[in-house]
């Protein structure tokens, strides 16, 4: 009886179209938000905030971005790392060139710049699809990383190539970026960004734009025949997706690691994000978060589990086992539950809905 839809009659299409039409879902969301905004910063220590919660938020955003493109619009990309790097460097250049500019604006603009780059590399999607496209997106990955490494202009001619993210404040002197900002401030700032962008994503995917993406994903020819323009739709998906990935990259550099370096966004990063999307659930906003949480927590679990049971395993070995487990999990999910953790959650919810009378 915990989770009941019955008795909640919707008297208008407007109500039916609400983002969470079921009361229990709304309550759940409220609880999650309260926990995230109030309980977590109060209860978690700094170590937890900066080594678990921050990467989780940053990854969630990147996974969300890739999920919009791959899960909703059906365009497989292996270039996520390149787009994150673009966002990080765009934010760095903007923040340094315009020290007075509000950091929120800086992040949004870096998202817009990344969107532009994403559109550019999305152009091949008009002629090719599936793994052909995936291979083409590798071009963006390798080219962009090479570019940021090669041209000292991007790092403002720093000699080491590793640069620290400039400290910036919001609301006067409340520092949210750079290494001196408090983990709480960083966390809340990133959380606000991620929460709002997730809401926006949820709105977009249930609009005519999102339906256009899914139509292209499910059957591109039929989509075109009913009047959905492939050009605008696909490039639009690349733009929005890259916008999200770009902001995620900016958050990574400015808030999570406090340093801007292209190396952080190499090809393994792209795969990592793709794995989050697959494990979390293709075509699910919630899944992006679940997948990110899973992949942030897995290595922590793996590196602690052996010591907990008294085994002593080298760091090297753990990282190899991580590869193995990750690979096996991907295969497992694709075979057993291609819709990922998000679907498992939904199934659990449906069971709960019928509980305690399963028939």
């Amino acid at each position, binding site marked *: 009886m915990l989770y009941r839809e019955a008795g909640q009659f919707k008297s208008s299409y407007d109500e039916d179209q609400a983002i969470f039409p079921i009361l229990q879902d709304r309550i759940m969301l409220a609880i999650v938000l309260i926990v995230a905004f109030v309980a977590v910063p109060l209860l978690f220590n700094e170590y937890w905030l900066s080594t678990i919660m921050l990467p989780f938020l940053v990854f969630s955003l990147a996974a969300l971005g890739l999920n919009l493109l791959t899960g909703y619009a059906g365009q497989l990309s292996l270039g996520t790392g390149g787009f994150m790097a673009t966002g990080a460097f765009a934010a760095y250049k903007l923040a340094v060139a315009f020290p007075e500019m509000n950091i929120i604006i800086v992040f949004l603009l870096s998202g817009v710049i990344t969107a532009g780059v994403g559109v550019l590399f999305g152009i091949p999607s008009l002629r090719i699809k599936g793994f052909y496209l995936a291979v083409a997106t590798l071009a963006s990955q390798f080219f962009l990383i090479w570019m940021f490494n090669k041209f000292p202009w991007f790092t403002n001619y720093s000699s080491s190539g590793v640069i620290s993210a400039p400290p910036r404040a919001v609301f006067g002197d409340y520092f949210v970026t750079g290494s001196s900002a408090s983990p709480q401030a960083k966390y809340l700032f990133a959380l606000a960004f991620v929460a709002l962008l997730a809401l926006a994503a949820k709105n977009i995917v249930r609009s005519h734009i999102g339906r256009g993406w899914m139509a292209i994903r499910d059957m591109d020819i039929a989509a075109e025949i009913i009047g959905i323009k492939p050009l605008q739709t696909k490039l639009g998906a690349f733009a929005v997706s890259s916008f999200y990935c770009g902001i995620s990259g900016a958050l990574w550099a400015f808030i999570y690691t406090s340093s801007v370096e292209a190396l952080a966004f190499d090809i393994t990063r792209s795969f990592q994000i793709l794995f989050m999307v697959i494990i979390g659930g293709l075509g699910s906003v919630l899944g992006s978060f679940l997948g990110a949480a899973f992949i942030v927590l897995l290595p922590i679990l793996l590196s602690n589990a052996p010591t907990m049971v008294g085994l002593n395993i080298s760091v090297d070995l753990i990282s190899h086992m991580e590869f193995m487990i990750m690979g096996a999990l991907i*295969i497992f999910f694709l075979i057993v539950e291609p819709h990922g953790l998000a679907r498992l959650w939904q199934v659990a919810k449906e069971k709960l809905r019928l509980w305690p009378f399963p028939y």
Partner: protein
Amino acid sequence: MEFLTAIFVTPFVEIVSYPIFFFEVVIGGLLAGVMYSLVALGFVLIFKASGVFNFAQGAMVLFAALTLVGLMEHGLPWWLALLLTIAVMVLLAITVEKVVLRKLVNQEAIILFMATIGLSYFLDGFGQTIWGSDVKVLDLGIPSAPLEFGGILVNEFDIVAAVSAGSLVAVLAVFFQKTRIGRALRAVADDHQAALSVGIPLKTIWAIVWSVAGLVGLVAGIMWGTKLGVQFTLTLVALKALPVLILGGFTSIPGAIIGGLIIGMGEKVAEVFWGAAFGGAIEDWFAYMLALVFLLFRPQGLFGDKIIERV
């Protein structure tokens, strides 16, 4: 202006002034390209027979090489190590067919593709868990002295690699043309139904094809491993086979070979003569960019089948 000169003038001046050097670069590139072809060949075999784009081909190259070196490090003579590695690759193929392919048989191609990405991670992790991740030297006694042909310097090893690759392709050609299994494989590539009528179960065919791809991977692994040492970066080299495929077409063996040669040569020439204009290291992305631009004009590749859509 300076930049334009560096792109449109200087390289050509260099090429004309030092033709011998240019030829050396071209030949070096072609020979390196042979090794790309070798990896690409593994992809094509599997794609033709099962429609699976096997992203893990690169991981199979590394895994095969790691197994071989690992066994040799444990004191096995090279021929025994080689035999055991072949056995391991066949076993791997059978396992993959049983555990992965069979379960995903009716899924969309893109799901299978992602599954092979998972497989590639698994293999990378598995290989290194067993054999460790330090760079291993693979020495099968292949000579590597520079040789001179009419003023052009060529590395002996590259020639050995090219000849081995050539023989491998020849052996495969005979296998496909003359043996019953080979003919069945070709039938499968054209039409799954037709293959069934040959009387060989699809799953056997898949296991065979993955084994063959594993062996091709082993040869590629030996070549690359001898050249660069057996290490994780081999998988990155293997990634370069993807643009080769795009150029050559996913279903064409000659395509894989010619695509590999084009990419190998193009990337070397670009790096040596144009690299400076861009600040160097353009080898990192040149192949992918070339493939990307190419895709825009000929999505099916040089030799691929034309893509026709119907409703």
